[in-house]
């Protein structure tokens, strides 16, 4: 009997050894140029990016891309500034479009306008090129770009007698729906389910709403803040009313509290980036609906996200980096990226492909962000946007938490912003 044991063991070892040798042979680390790619993708987006980069490394022998997570956009910006100063830049970095100016104005990156192929120029949508273009020069390849959409809990709609396939179109509708959806189930005087939550995340939350009122955040020359205009004040009045007049939105929740409440189903509606759709659909316990961002007077959404910048100095490394970026943003990969994250597909050919049309038929939530592209615009770029963003965050907090007068607070914030913008002008 024992001979069967030895026979079995021998066969098993032979199969394992031969298979692992073959497999390991196929996966050996590539020689050739090694490129470092700093990125800011976390959780499931990181998995999706890692898979794409692994595919690239497996697909050829000349270039090996080493993916390094460097924290979220803010942290990445700080690390890049440090790297630029010490001369230790990565070959490729994922730079948020609002931080691109920090590096263009510092002369740390070169335009790549001439290096872009005609195919890419024509196939990638102009809105996306605009987000990485400064003074008619392109400084990055658009990569992970997103717009805000309205997430809503279809189950809560059904329970409140609302049609889950008819989400609110305007902010006035949001008030009507929110009134029906805000509930104190146990009648203890504490709201258990809020109709809506707008986490006005500084520039990104505020700008599209001002544009929807016909206003602008900064003037065209980027020398003056306009967010304290009538449009800006009316937007803040609207947001304040949601909390204090209509009482359909919590007034003092942090972003973390809001996110947790949304997960638990305690918030029914909220504007959130389309880059979270994949995560939300797979992880939320309730039926997720996605609708276009409600509008006030005009439709407008903000285009946010990041582009891929090459910091390589040598022409050989720069070419390798651009070849990789071109591969990463090619039609098939931008379809994969959209499907595995929710970020916008960059190319017309991708949007028109049967692969995506089939995907969108089964996953209509992913189509909403694409439908919003005709009225998507990036923020008003200036190298001082991070500082102004901070100012506006404090102002919004002050208005919402301390119930201050929007006009007074926004005027004060605009004064601070103008000082910064003027100092830019002086330079």
């Amino acid at each position, binding site marked *: *009997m024992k001979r*069967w044991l030895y026979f079995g063991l021998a*066969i098993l070892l032979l199969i*394992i050894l031969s298979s692992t040798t073959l*497999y390991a042979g196929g996966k050996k680390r590539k020689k050739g140029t090694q490129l470092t790619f700093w990125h800011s993708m976390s959780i499931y987006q990181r998995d999706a990016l890692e898979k794409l980069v692994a595919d690239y490394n497996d697909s050829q022998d000349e270039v090996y891309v080493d993916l390094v997570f460097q924290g979220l956009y803010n942290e990445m910006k700080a690390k890049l500034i440090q790297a630029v100063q010490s001369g230790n830049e990565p070959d490729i970095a994922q730079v948020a479009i609002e931080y691109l100016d920090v590096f263009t104005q510092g002369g740390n990156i070169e335009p790549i306008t001439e290096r872009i192929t005609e195919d890419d120029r024509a196939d990638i949508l102009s809105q996306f090129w605009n987000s990485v273009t400064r003074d008619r020069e392109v400084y990055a390849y658009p990569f992970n770009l997103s717009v805000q959409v309205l997430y809503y809990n279809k189950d809560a709609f059904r329970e409140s007698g609302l049609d889950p396939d008819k989400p609110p179109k305007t902010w006035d509708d949001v008030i009507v729906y929110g009134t029906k959806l805000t509930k104190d189930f146990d009648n203890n005087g504490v709201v258990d389910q809020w109709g809506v939550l707008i986490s006005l995340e500084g520039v990104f939350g505020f700008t599209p709403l001002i544009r929807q009122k016909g206003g602008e955040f900064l003037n065209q020359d980027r020398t003056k803040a306009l967010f304290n205009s009538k449009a800006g004040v009316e937007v803040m009045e609207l947001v304040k009313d949601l909390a204090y007049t209509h009482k359909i939105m919590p007034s003092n929740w942090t972003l973390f509290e809001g996110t947790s409440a949304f*997960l638990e189903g305690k918030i029914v509606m909220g504007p959130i980036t389309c880059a979270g759709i994949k995560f939300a659909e797979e992880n939320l316990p309730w039926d997720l609906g996605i609708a276009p961002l409600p509008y006030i007077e005009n439709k407008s959404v903000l285009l946010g996200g990041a582009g891929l910048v090459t910091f390589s100095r040598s022409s050989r490394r720069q070419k390798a980096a651009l070849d990789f970026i071109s591969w990463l943003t090619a039609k098939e990969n931008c379809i994969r990226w959209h499907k595995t994250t929710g970020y916008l597909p960059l190319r017309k050919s991708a949007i028109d492909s*049967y692969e995506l049309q089939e995907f969108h038929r089964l996953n209509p939530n992913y189509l909403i962000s694409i439908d919003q592209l005709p009225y998507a615009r990036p923020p008003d770029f200036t190298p001082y946007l991070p500082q102004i963003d901070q100012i506006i965050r404090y102002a919004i907090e002050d208005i919402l938490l301390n119930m201050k007068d929007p006009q007074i607070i926004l005027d004060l914030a605009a004064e601070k912003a103008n000082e910064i913008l003027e100092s830019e002008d002086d330079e």
Partner: protein
Amino acid sequence: MSGIYAGLALLLLLALVTPVFAEDEIHLLRIEVEGNDVTSEDFIRSMLTLQQGEVYDLDRIIDEINESRQNLEKTGLFGSVFFNDELDDENNLVLTVQVREKNYLHFGLSGYLGYEDKEFYSVSSLYLNYTNVGGNGSLFYLEVPFYRDYGVIARYMGNPGKFQYTLGLDVRYDYFYDENVQKLIAGLGYNLHERLLFGLDIQSSRESPVQSSDSTLSFVFYPYVRWGLARRYTEKQKKWHSLFLTPYAGITVPNRSDSGNTQFYGIDSRLSLNRDVLLQIVYSLNVYASYQDGTIPNEYTIKSNIRGSYYDAHTGSYRLTVINNFDFPWPSYNRIHLVPFLDYGIVGDDKADFLIGGGVGFHWYTKYQDPFVFEVAFGEGFMINLSKNF
């Protein structure tokens, strides 16, 4: 003049032979297949409902792509399936099916180590599982028990699709009953629907006690039905369940002529309910119900499956057990899952033993183990469990 007629005739001929498509129609000129290093192209093409040379409208081609994709994904052989469309110079569609193959070879250590009634017990084996034999999704499983029990266990499951067949061979020494076992299995299954499988397995097994020259030969018939989904296809699917039911009947023929033939029969069932609760945390409830009667060969005895108690030491003619698992993916690295569990139920003959066991499992989804299972369980005793069920 004759040139004019010739020209007109040529034009007429061309008009007759050149297909004219409406603007919204798509002529599928060619289908190509890429990325299949192991899987056979014929097997992939057999999953496609699209036809080369056909003319489609947009709705229909998207429906067909969807159906073809589902067929391919349900094989479980591919990490991703991608349909790339390109138009040639004459606006004909060339569709390329790009598949990303998974690793088909899994192997590792299986078994358990326990302590119960002041005694240690253990069963250990090496296993190997190859899930794409012949490039058509056929499965080969080989297990080599090397501690306490020893021998070879082999299974082959061929041609998944509408029909599937099973071949199996066991040649092993069973330490608990101190006997040698040789078993042959042959089976045929038919997928009536993607959620409904019917089949019949026939087993013959010879049990030869080491301490005696007596041996028995048993033949068992296992008709079975499986309904529902044993696993989910996408993470968007929040609930899935399955029911497996197999009544069986057997006859045992002793090698001594002074003993008569004996019969036995029984039924095994398993109901599995799974729910994605929140953030990929999955709760699974599995209910096992078994009953048997007659003169049961050792090989077919109902055993406990409550983790934390020695399986071989708790046997009987019926079993009703409930296995509860909570599967928590590690937030920052979802290849690792923590799986606390609670098992309870009864196993016995006239008098049933109530058993309860619980503990926590660590499941690590690696390239070669799907997953590597390490469980610590407390019940009647203590158990470290590495079992990866086939």
